[in-house]
């Protein structure tokens, strides 16, 4: 048997399969197909899965409740996913595949600011609307894009709630230390935090960054400790949140309060740290304690949503789940209002959308960013995450100042 011809044939077959178009996803004429590149593997696996859960939960509900009504006709919903491996340019290419090969109607955003940005650029070129719930960097919305909409509050506002709360406690926080990972999202959060601190007449005594692949942040913490801050803030993701919190205890940094962006809201944080996670504040886009009354067409309160979600997925929904579902809701209401599946009409309907949901108000400014929804501040108390700020939404009072390490 000669190998040479076989080798040629294999390579040619490969090229052929590559070039072959796959069957369009919207084969049936009465299904609306959404496409979504999410991080099913790579460094953002967990967050990608949370995003997917949020989307799927909505899809199950909507299909069980008559689908989306477009001009009198009921459409079922389907969502096609690809794995972007947590990589920025892969995400955009996958979105392109979803549009060109799989012929999806609309795009649901990926997880993360980096990926959301590249996909936003791509959908702008393709003129297909995208709604995302997991990319908070304002950079995405400062480019003049018309086809991207974000239902979440911008990165700059993440730590505002914690700063606001800390400034109103007794004894009030006067000095702030900010550490941030080097990625775009974390840097924007840090900038916003510094600005908010200044607005609340607090002094920023330390403001530094570390590489987001850092394996050790002890020296950043040592330098921070020297400045003796009242409030320690960290802008990063789950992995570095854990690293920082452990480091703070190891070096005996005794501040009045500790606040993080993504970490505390994930069950992983409390599970991994046990008692050392107590009294830590987390910034959240949503919590199940919020008191919004949503429009009909979906669960109308956060509590109803949380209960149904937990029954389906066996864990309490965190804000990544909720904001992903909210992205779907934006499409749902916009499509119904537009009465059409035409991308331009849906885009215009999205731009004019103004609806309250279990997640909060969904309304976009001229750039496509939802600046109308406030952030929520949670605190881990006795291993449970409770909402403590703004006061109107508080389930429990704030624990402040933090007790010494080991006594929490």
């Amino acid at each position, binding site marked *: 048997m000669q190998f040479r011809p076989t080798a040629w044939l294999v390579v040619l077959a490969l090229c052929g399969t590559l070039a072959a178009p796959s069957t369009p996803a919207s084969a049936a004429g009465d299904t609306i197909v959404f496409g979504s590149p999410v991080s099913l*593997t790579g460094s953002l696996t967990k967050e990608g899965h949370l995003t997917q859960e949020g989307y799927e939960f909505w899809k199950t509900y909507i299909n069980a409740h008559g689908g989306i009504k477009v001009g009198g006709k009921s459409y079922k919903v389907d969502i096609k996913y690809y794995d972007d491996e947590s990589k920025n340019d892969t995400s955009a290419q996958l979105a392109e595949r979803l549009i060109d090969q799989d012929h999806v109607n609309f795009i649901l955003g990926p997880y993360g600011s980096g990926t959301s940005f590249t996909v936003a650029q791509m959908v702008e070129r393709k003129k297909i609307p995208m709604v995302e719930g997991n990319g908070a960097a304002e950079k995405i919305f400062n480019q003049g894009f018309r086809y991207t909409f974000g239902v979440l509050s911008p990165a700059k506002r993440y730590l505002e709630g914690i700063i606001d709360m800390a400034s109103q406690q007794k004894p009030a926080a006067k000095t702030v230390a900010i550490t941030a990972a080097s990625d775009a999202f974390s840097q924007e959060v840090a900038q916003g935090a510094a600005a908010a601190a200044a607005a609340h007449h607090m002094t920023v005594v330390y403001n530094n960054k570390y590489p987001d692949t850092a394996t050790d942040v002890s020296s950043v913490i040592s330098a921070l400790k020297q400045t003796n801050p009242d409030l320690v803030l960290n802008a990063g993701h789950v992995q570095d949140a854990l690293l920082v919190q452990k480091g703070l205890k190891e070096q005996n940094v005794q501040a009045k309060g500790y606040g993080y962006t993504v970490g505390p809201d994930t069950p992983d944080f409390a599970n*991994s740290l046990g008692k050392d996670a107590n009294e830590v504040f987390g910034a959240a886009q949503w919590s199940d304690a919020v008191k919004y009354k949503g429009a009909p067409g979906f669960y109308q309160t956060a509590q109803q949503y949380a209960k149904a979600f937990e029954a389906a997925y066996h864990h309490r929904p965190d804000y990544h789940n909720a904001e992903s579902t909210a992205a779907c809701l934006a499409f749902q209401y916009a499509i119904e209002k537009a009465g059409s599946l035409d991308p331009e009409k849906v885009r215009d309907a999205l731009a004019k959308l103004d609806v309250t949901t279990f997640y909060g108000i969904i309304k976009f400014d001229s750039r496509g960013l939802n600046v109308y929804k406030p952030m929520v501040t949670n605190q881990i108390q006795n291993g449970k995450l409770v909402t403590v700020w703004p006061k109107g939404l508080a389930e429990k009072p704030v624990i402040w100042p933090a007790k010494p390490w080991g006594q929490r």
Partner: protein
Amino acid sequence: MQLWAQDLVNGILAGGILAVVALGFSLVWGIMNIINLAHGAFVMLGAYLTWELFRQLHVDPFLSLPITFVALFVLGYLLQRYVINWVARAPILTTFLLTFGLSLLIVNIALIIWTGDTRGVTTSYSGANFTVAGVTVPWAKLLTLVAALAITGVLQLWLTRSKMGRAIRATSMDIGAAQLSGVRVAHIYAIVFGLGAGLAGVAGTLVSLSYALTPTMGDPFVVAAFVVCVLGGLGSVQGALVGGLVYGIVEAFATQLDVTIGTQHISGSGLQDAIALVVLLIVLLVRPTGIIGRATA
């Protein structure tokens, strides 16, 4: 508190772990001429094994060190003997490619088993520390350093004094002569690779005390291992230790750089990697085979 003294201590403590991570990598590379890109995956497996033992059987991580060593040693031995051995004498890039593929396999299998959730090992003494002369030293990190030094010492003794150790060094120097003296090369290679994996597992255990566990957690450690190995000297046990300590100390002191020129913030901690690498390049240009140098007889 004197910041520079604290930085020095931080650097030494961090460097100790990096030394253990680099140790196995360096041995396999120096002795077998194999760049094991799956090394990070082995570290990850060691960490997860420790986590499971801690979570299910309440075994303290330090006590699980021998268990992770043996478990990963066996895995490494079998992997080398029955998979990698087929191309053990191929050009270094062939094995590079093979271990690249193996790494993808192992990480993705781990992803299926343990999902992408972030895990942590927090013991009762986690975070406990003592302060001496104004410098705060965390107990867990100190114990890790002690473990690292002990492991390095034992390994060095074993390689120089024991029969197996001598056979290994003979094989690395001249495979033909070693074979003629009755050394079973395939078996030796498997032992060395198993040793490398076992050390990676041990490193994973030590790392799990402070670093969060995910299937991809090994990646930054492999990069550090590359640099530390070469910094200290390939294949040299003392080299890995010295390289690790130097690397850790440099990165710790780098955070002292914190200036703003105009609107450009120059942050030493943000430029950690760049600074450490400049140090590496300087060392290599002055001493091309690393600080300690290539392991010889």
